[in-house]
């Protein structure tokens, strides 16, 4: 059973068709990176996987449960999914520790002591144990994003979704977040990552999916999609991303 299976997924906002029939799967333990130009529907795809957006048609399965079934308990499914946003979205009124414990207590009904123990372990894992009592506003962007990862991990998700987790960060803070993600991947976490970090994708991803204008153009191992793209649109996109200055040279 695949961790995520998407069948013929369509999503429109009013007249605008953003996803035009997406099919793909993520197997347990895989890291899949989604790349593509801005506006191609990457965020929308990710948000359809945890139903922050309702698909217009098609099916989404997570661990065999059909999310697109109208009778499904969305909250129960979301418990198994961790989501990391571009803008971190830490709870601004809560300390770092409380950010990581609140859903454990309120959703998983763990006791305060157990939740705090797990929170301290996950904060340790992202290298921020000493920030437990800080508020989000006192942290750098990179630290906030690592707390956001810890917050999701503490729920023991079977799949982690990342939506451009490093795009809002100053360049010198990107590395810390990526190395946390790299470790997660090594620990065997199943991950679906929207990113522009080609180095990360090449090194960590089992598969890279290139999306353009609401459709999947290429789907394959990184050494193929990034190093030797078949499709001209993929080649053009990678040219722009990998060599931003030299794009017009030839």
């Amino acid at each position, binding site marked *: 059973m695949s961790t995520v299976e998407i069948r013929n997924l369509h999503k429109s906002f009013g007249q605008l068709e953003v996803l035009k029939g997406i099919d793909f799967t993520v197997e347990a333990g895989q890291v899949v990176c989604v790349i593509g130009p801005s506006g191609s529907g990457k965020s929308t795809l990710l948000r359809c996987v*945890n139903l*922050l957006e309702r698909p217009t048609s098609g099916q989404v399965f997570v661990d065999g449960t059909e999310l697109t079934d109208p009778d499904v308990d969305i*909250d*129960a499914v*979301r*418990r198994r*999914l*961790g*989501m990391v*946003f571009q*803008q971190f*979205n*830490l*709870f*601004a*009124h809560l300390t770092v520790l409380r950010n990581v414990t*609140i*859903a454990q207590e*309120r*959703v*998983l009904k763990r006791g305060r002591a157990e939740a705090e123990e797990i929170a301290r372990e996950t904060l340790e894992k992202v290298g921020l144990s000493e920030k437990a009592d800080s508020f989000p506003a006192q942290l750098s962007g990179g630290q906030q994003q690592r707390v*956001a990862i810890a*917050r*999701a991990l503490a*729920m023991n998700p079977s799949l982690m979704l990342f939506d451009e987790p490093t795009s809002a960060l100053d360049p010198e803070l990107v590395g810390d977040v990526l190395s946390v993600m790299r470790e997660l991947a090594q620990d065997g976490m199943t991950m679906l990552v929207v990113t522009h970090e080609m180095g990360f994708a090449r090194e960590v991803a089992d598969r890279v999916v290139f999306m353009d204008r609401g459709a999947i153009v290429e789907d394959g191992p990184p050494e193929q999609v990034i190093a030797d793209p078949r499709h001209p649109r993929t080649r053009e996109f990678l040219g722009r991303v990998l060599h931003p200055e030299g794009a017009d040279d030839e």
Partner: protein
Amino acid sequence: MSEQPTTLPSRKAWSPRKRQRIGRGAQYTLLIVVAVVLASLADWGAIRQSFFNTQVAADGLPRLFTVALKNTVIYTISGYVVGFALGMLLALMRQSSVAPYRWTASTYIEIFRGLPALVIFLMIGSLPLAFPGLQVPGGVYGQAALGLGLVSAAYMAETFRAGLQAVPKGQMEAARSLGMPHMRAMVSIIVPQAVRIVIPPLTNELVLLFKDSSLVLFLGVTAAQVELAKFGNDQASTFASPTPILVSGLTYLLITIPLGYVARRLESRQRGKR
């Protein structure tokens, strides 16, 4: 041909600096003239006699604080609690996905924002006519809490709504993606942040309500239930002197000025934080 357009055929032009000085001088002169006229028209002996009659003021003294101010504070706070709860409920109803909830809340807010507080207080006494057998619990205290609560709830609802909208959308999405049901996310994540945002305007509302508590006098209160305005008015007629009213007024200011100051401080501190 090359004549400068700015050199008008000259009357003696005043420099802007000089003009400003003359303007300011005129304003001071006006102020002094008005003050002198008022001072010469007033009967200072009579003013001291009626408005600053220390004997009359002293007569009300312990009760001014132990009864009147105490009751004013009780009415204000109980009204505030009712208004806060009802206002929060209305603000949440306005965001409900159930349309009749939204209509009910908007209608309430429209109506009660448009009504003078006095009219609401006059209606409260007539409630038993509409609902026979209905007794507002707590007698005058309950009626006062209800009246002031109804008066303030509409404003508080609007304030809460602004506060709820000021919480970034990502907060709700983050909460939902952790598996929190909508209600739980509202209670644990959204509302606490919204309340923080609205603390300054809600402090101002407390000042307004403190003043509006004077309307309790229309509920028909006993001597033990009297608040500042009625206390001053009763004393004033007993002694045929306006001094008690002045004293009541000063007692209001004793609370409202510091509270208003606190509200402005909170406001500027919050503005600094953004």
